């Protein structure tokens, strides 16, 4: 088991290195650097000014060299302007010329500098990840139980009317991407002129103009039912259908097993068969699916955070990619690789744990 985890960690580091190198290469292509220079300096820079801006900050070295500097395996060069202000990768605003460290990379625990937020990448990403973590927590709280209930109810009597209608609901939810369901929810629940909000306001059932808020911009400081519901259910809905279908398939399979028939013939009541015999085995497969669903949720998070203006990890991704904020993009790639591979690892280990028939050899 220890060796297995160690091997997986090795793969994780190798994948992160390859992935960050690809991101590094693409973000350091000259047109992207030019965009960076123009957003940092001003938009009417001449080509020579752009070149000297980039050169003085060390952007024009070869890509492997810059990558090694980002990793912290190579010293980053420092140049000085005429008045002695240092410029370079390791330089932070307000730093004295003699305080500039020669190494500043991942190995030194330094994740770089966000050129858009004017802050350390680690600080930026920590707040963003905190926000997204909170969102994801609520998504999980809403999505997992409802998906499992739908799946179990549908799979318990395969082919019945309940099964048909619940399966249709789960197909519908997998067919609705976040940007569609978000738009529909805003139209029906958060618009002061359409949907149910005007009716409810007319009857005096709600205080404000709308039932929910179409933006979650305030949800970072004070999340409440009004501004946080729509983002949560928008993400939860898309993932729910898939988990429900997997649960249904697994439940239906378990219900045809021999030991269930035995229990039936023994005279165990249907309720007890479901609760005591079937559920335990039927929930092994959905556990894996839920874990593997997390990276997919990350995708939904990007869309929903953009749609509802919630400043989390996904919002940061779009912001950084739009402005070619190199260090932030690299940090984001590392985080997402770790999330993807960690959830895979957890799902594998959990599977072994839940299913004693399988052992990792």
């Amino acid at each position, binding site marked *: 088991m220890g060796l297995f985890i160690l091997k997986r960690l090795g793969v994780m580091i190798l*994948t992160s290195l*390859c*992935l960050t190198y*690809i*991101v590094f290469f*693409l*973000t350091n*292509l*000259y*047109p*992207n650097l*030019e*965009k960076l220079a123009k957003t940092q300096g001003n938009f009417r820079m001449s080509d020579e000014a752009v070149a000297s801006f980039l050169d003085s900050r060390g952007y024009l070295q070869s890509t492997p060299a810059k990558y090694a500097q980002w990793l912290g395996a190579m010293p980053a060069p420092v140049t000085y302007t005429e008045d002695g202000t240092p410029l370079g990768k390791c330089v932070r605003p307000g730093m004295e010329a003699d305080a500039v460290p020669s190494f500043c990379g991942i190995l030194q625990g330094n994740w770089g500098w966000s050129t858009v937020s004017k802050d350390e990448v680690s600080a930026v990403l920590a707040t963003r990840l905190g926000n997204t973590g909170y969102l994801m927590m609520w998504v999980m709280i809403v999505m997992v139980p409802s998906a499992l209930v739908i799946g179990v109810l549908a799979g318990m009597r395969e082919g*019945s*009317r*309940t099964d048909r*209608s619940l399966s*249709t609901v789960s*197909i*519908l939810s*997998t*067919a*609705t*991407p976040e*940007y*569609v369901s*978000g*738009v*529909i929810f*805003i*139209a029906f629940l*958060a*618009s*002061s*002129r*359409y*949907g149910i909000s005007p009716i409810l306001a007319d009857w005096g059932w709600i205080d404000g103009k*709308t039932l929910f808020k*179409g933006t979650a911009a305030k949800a970072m400081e004070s999340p409440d039912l009004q501004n946080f519901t729509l983002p949560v259910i928008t993400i939860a809905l898309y993932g729910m259908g898939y988990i429900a279908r997997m649960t249904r398939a697994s439940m239906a399979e378990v219900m045809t097993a021999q030991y269930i028939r035995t229990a039936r013939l023994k005279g165990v009541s249907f309720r007890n068969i479901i609760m005591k015999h079937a559920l335990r085995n039927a929930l092994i497969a959905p556990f894996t699916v839920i874990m593997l669903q997390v*990276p997919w949720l*990350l*995708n939904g998070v*990007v*869309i929903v955070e*953009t*749609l509802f203006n919630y400043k989390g990890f*996904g919002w940061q*991704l*779009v912001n950084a*990619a*739009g402005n*070619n904020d190199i260090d932030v*993009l690299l940090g*984001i*790639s590392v985080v*997402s*690789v770790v999330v*993807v*591979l960690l959830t895979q690892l957890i799902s594998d280990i959990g599977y072994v744990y839940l299913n004693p028939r399988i052992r990792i050899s």
Partner: protein
Amino acid sequence: MEPLTWTGSLGTAVDPVFTIIAFLFLAMVVLQIVGSFAFAAVDHKINADGTITYDTGPNALIGKGVKYSLFALLALIILYLLSGIIVPGSSGIIGALSAQLAPVWVALVFTFLVSIVYKRKLGLYGKLFDSTVGMIGFALVMFWVYTAVFTGVFDMIATHDPLGQLSGMKNKAPGTPVRGADPAECGLSCYYLLGGDNLARDVFSRVVEGSWIVIAIAPLATLFAFMIGITLGLPAGYFGGRLDTVLSFLANLVLAFPVILLFYLLVTPEIVQIGIPNYMAMVLGLFPIMFIVVVLNSRFHTRPKVRTPLMLAVVGASVWMYLSFVSSGGYFVSTPTYSIPGLPTFLDLFDIDPGILVVAVSVAFVNSITVFRIVRGLALDIQTRDYVAAAQTRGEGPWYIMLWEILPNARGPLIVDFCLRIGYTTILLGTLGFFGLGLAPESPDWGTTINDGRKLMQLYVHPALPPAMALLSLVLGLNLLADGLREESLRD
């Protein structure tokens, strides 16, 4: 001119009935869900003499209620749609939309009639018409296919230019007549049937034009992805070993990327400018040619007399298509700083809009990775079968076994996945549009339109809702179709 109401003059009489039946139907459905837990299940008894005693318990009665109210509802909807076609203007916006879509209805009815009559002779496709879910899915998909074809190829359905901005129509409600239009000459194109967007363009025309972009790109990009995934996945699963390790590592590498970050890295204007998508198109475009060559060669290499002319013709044609695909305006790659000359323009069969090329290539690339994993898994599974061992004993080459023994036996899951994947591709295309990547900002595709419309969502919902519903119904149709196909293919 009066603006159109949703259901027009027919609506004043029929609307109340429709509302009552709709509420009745909803109440019945709720009752049915409650009833399935509260009362005994419906149980028709088959008597000893072969007759059936129908159950008349509460659940059976509720079931009947649901059925008949649903039929009544459908009949009323058909009434609205038909009356709009037969008496123009009699059933408001809904009727006008229906009249505008008349060619689509005709084509749909014709397709269904022919398919149902000959369904026993049509193989898996015919079996689809045995399952209700499959038929509904097929109808939704074909609705959009016909809409797209009639709009994009025959220029029939759209009432206005999707890019045309008419003064005074900004954010106007559905059914608003165009300012200064003369009803005698323009008919239905006097109206913005689904309203105007924030740049005063016709929402209806944009939605139907957008369907052409989706229907043209999504299946082709998916087909591309399948060819790439199959060409790489079969050997990875069949040979295993180091090849499998390397390819699987690369696939996992790409899968660890959040899709949107990948799109941002590949499709931003700066990257497009230096031609990376063109290089990707050049590389990915080679896979279909490789696929075709290997398929034909492995089958016919024992008969050189057939093989050589066949290969010459097919490879010639596909290379020509490939060159036309990757080169546009006489260049493979054309950037401000350098360019690689390609096929001369007089030999170039078709030019693909650079934005569409970029989008199609990146969507195909992302999908091909997942297809690779599926095909690899199927190959691993199927290669243990006896018929593969038999072919090996016969002395067949590895490519023959992969393409003519393993692949045909994996077709069931692959066909189902193909349907699902077209839906996923549609979602990805919408995502790209939603983030404004690749396609031009005024492009009428659904993602871009949703993104445009969402900014004023609190005040005007009509610009964003129709494309959202369109995308939803197409993807839903594809999912239902896949479900029907899976059910029917499992039944054999």
